[in-house]
């Protein structure tokens, strides 16, 4: 292992910030959701890098759990987007100005 662990953390930080910008800037609900996935992946990468840094597998187990939760979250989130699309005929968050169904 000759690459410093911190390089992976820097990549992870950059990916997380790009994901944050995506969530704040984009309007398509699906693309916002993809940016959230990018953030989750960035944090997973940081967890695995820390696991390597400390020389135990707890970080990898946590990354594994976060993948499971992310899979469940994607399924529910996409179902919500499909349901909202049925009502409003739009996937742009600019059109979702009221929470009332």
């Amino acid at each position, binding site marked *: 292992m000759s690459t410093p662990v911190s390089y*992976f953390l820097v990549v992870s930080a950059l990916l997380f*910030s790009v994901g944050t910008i995506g969530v704040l*800037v984009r309007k398509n609900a*699906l693309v916002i959701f993809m940016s959230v*996935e990018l953030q989750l992946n960035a944090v997973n990468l940081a967890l695995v890098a820390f*696991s390597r840094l400390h020389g135990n597998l707890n970080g*990898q187990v946590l990354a594994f759990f976060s993948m499971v939760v992310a899979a469940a*979250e994607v399924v529910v989130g996409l179902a919500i987007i*499909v349901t909202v699309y049925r009502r409003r005929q739009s996937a742009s968050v600019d059109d979702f100005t009221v929470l009332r169904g």
Partner: protein
Amino acid sequence: MTAEQLVFWVFAPISVGSAIAMVLQRNAVHAALFLVVNFFTIAVFYLILGASFLFAVQIIVYAGAIMVLFLFVIMLLGVDRDESLFERLKGQRVIAITLGVGIAVELIVAIRAGIGFATKGAENFDAVNRGGNAEALGRVLFRQYFFPFEVTSVLLIVAGIAVVVLASQKRRIITRADAAAAAARREAA
């Protein structure tokens, strides 16, 4: 420069570049494809970091299952048109990018202050991965983390039920074609 460093320096720019390209793409399908590239590069990073099991899981779960789901929903809803560049909140884009760059700088400063840029991983990682990464991970997962592991199965069942409930609501107008057909029926009646 070792092979490992070479792999890192080839894939790190691809990773960050594909993430930026994903945010910049106005078309949702292109954004999803750039996200697949990003997921693959992250899988390669897992491999360099000695997490070969997570490498496989990343490709199967993220690049496989989750992205197929995303593309399926994009196609189903037909939202693959270009997004409008109109800003409802004036200056939102500039402020968001400033804040995003700020968080990147802050995180990098925190990494430098926390562990420094030259810190290498622990030397004994091959011993940790004794019997292969999957076996070692299984040992930790089924001994130390057995209860959380069982709880995730409940979580997956709850998510499955939630999706069935959400998706099987009383049928309303579903597509534009359906809406047009419904309007035609009303006119005929």
